[in-house]
C-alpha cells in the first residue's frame, strides 16, 4: 500500500483490515503452481487475465479470430515458461500483456507483408457478462486513468508512443515514416515514458 508503515500495519491489525491478497502475490503463487505442473493454476490464471489479454489482442489486431489464437498462445507460453518467470522483472500482468503484445505484433507484421481482408464481423467479439465484476470495475477504472494520463501528454509524444506500442514500430521506423529526426523521436519516447512512469506508478498498488 502506498506509504504503508510498520505503525500503520499495527493499526490495521487492530482494526482487522488486511491488505488485499488477491493481487500480484496471488498471481505469482499461480505461476509457482504452474511450474509444478498444476493445470488448475493455469485455469485460474486464465479466468483472471483472459479478458484483459483478449482486449489488448483485439485492439491490436482488430480481428476476433486472430485475437482468440493470441489468447491461447499467450497462456500456452505462460504455461511453458512458468519456471522461467522472474517476479523481479515485472508483475504477472505485465508479463502476460507483454507476451500478448509481442505475439500480436508478430501477426500484425506478417499481415503487413501479406495484407488480408478484415471484415466488420471479425472486428470485435460480442460483449458478454464479466466473470468477476470487481476485476472488471478495477480494470475499467485503471483504463480510464491510463487514458487520461496519455491524453495529458503533448500530442506528438502521445502519437509517437502509440506508434511504438500499438503498431510495433521501432524509433528508427517512426523517424523514417514521420520525417522527423531520430533524435527527436528518441526524446519524445524518453520524455513520454518518464511522465507516464511517474504518473501511473501508483496503480501498481492495486493491480487488478
Amino acid at each position: 500500500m502506498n506509504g504503508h508503515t510498520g505503525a500503520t500495519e499495527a493499526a490495521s491489525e487492530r482494526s482487522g483490515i488486511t491488505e488485499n491478497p488477491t493481487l500480484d502475490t496471488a498471481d505469482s503463487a499461480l505461476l509457482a503452481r504452474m511450474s509444478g505442473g498444476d493445470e488448475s493454476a493455469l485455469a485460474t490464471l486464465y479466468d483472471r487475465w483472459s479478458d484483459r489479454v483478449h482486449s489488448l489482442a483485439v485492439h491490436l489486431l482488430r480481428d476476433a479470430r486472430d485475437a482468440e489464437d493470441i489468447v491461447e498462445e499467450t497462456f500456452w507460453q505462460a504455461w511453458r515458461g512458468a519456471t522461467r518467470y522472474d517476479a523481479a522483472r515485472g508483475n504477472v500482468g505485465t508479463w502476460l500483456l507483454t507476451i500478448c503484445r509481442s505475439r500480436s505484433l508478430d501477426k500484425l507484421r506478417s499481415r503487413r507483408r501479406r495484407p488480408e481482408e478484415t471484415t466488420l464481423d471479425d472486428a470485435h467479439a460480442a460483449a458478454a457478462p464479466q466473470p468477476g465484476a470487481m476485476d472488471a470495475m478495477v480494470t475499467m477504472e485503471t483504463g480510464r486513468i491510463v487514458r487520461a494520463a496519455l491524453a495529458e501528454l503533448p500530442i506528438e509524444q502521445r502519437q509517437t508512443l502509440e506508434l511504438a506500442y500499438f503498431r510495433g514500430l521501432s524509433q528508427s521506423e517512426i523517424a523514417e515514416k514521420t520525417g522527423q529526426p531520430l533524435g527527436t523521436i528518441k526524446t519524445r519516447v524518453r520524455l513520454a515514458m518518464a511522465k507516464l512512469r511517474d504518473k501511473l506508478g501508483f496503480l501498481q498498488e492495486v493491480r487488478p
Partner: protein
Amino acid sequence: MTQPWTHENTMAELGAYALDALAPDERAAIEAHLKTCASCRDELTAMRNTAAAMGTSVPTQPMDRIRSASVKQRLLERAKAERSGVTPIRSAAIPARPSPLPWWLAAAASIAFLVTAYQAVNIGRERDTLRTALISESLHVAGLRDSLAERERTLLAMAGPDVRVVELVANNRRPNARMFWAQSTNTWTMFAHNLPALPSGRTYQLWLITRDNQRISAGTFAPNASGDAAVSAQYPLPADALQMIAVTEEPAGGVPQPTGEVLIAGQPR
C-alpha cells in the same frame, strides 16, 4: 562482443527498450549494461510496468463466454497432453460467433473497421500516408471516447449487486475518489485524485464508517507527485452496515480513531 552502453545512455533508452522500439545493436548494448547495473534493472521493471499499463488503456472487450471456455479447455488439454506425452488435436470445435453487437460496440467497431481498411491499403508506403493514418488514429480515439463513456455507464450498471460504488467528494475542493466494494470477497479498492501534497510527518487515512458509528481504519496512504493514490484492503462488512467512507489527514503511521478534518467522503449508492 557488444560494447555495453554507459549508465546514462542506458537510462535514457530504457523506455524505448521496454517498448521494444530499439534497433538490434542498441538492444544488445543495453542488455550488456543491464547485466552489471541493478539500478537500471529496477528502472526497466518500472518501464515495463508502464508499457504494460498502455495495454490496459484499450477498451475492455471480453471474449464470448462459450468461445472463451473452448479456448480454456483446449489449453488445459494441451497442458495435460504435454505431461503425458500425447499430442492433442489442435482444433477443437468452437461454436459460431454470436451476434449482434450492442450499438455502442458496433459504433466503435465501424470506426475501427474504417481505420483498419484504410491501413490495409496504405500503411507503410510513405510519410503522407502515415500522417493521415495518425489523424485516423486520433479520430478512432475520439470516436471511442463517447462509446467508452457509455460502456463505463453500462459496466457500472452491471456491477450490482455484488460490487457497490462509492464516490468520495470534497466541499468546494478538487480532491475526489471512487471506491469499489466487492461484497462477495470483502475487497475494497479506492482510486483517489487531486489530493494535496502531505506535510512532513502526516499521512492520509481511509475510514469505513458503519451505521452504528464504528470508524474502521482501512489503512494509510500517500499520493504521488500528481496527487493520485490507490488503496486496496480486505474487510468483511454486512451489506447494509456501511454508512460512509471518508479520508482524513492524520499523523504518520495512522491512528486508531480519526482525529483530523475529513478531506473527502461519500455514501454508497
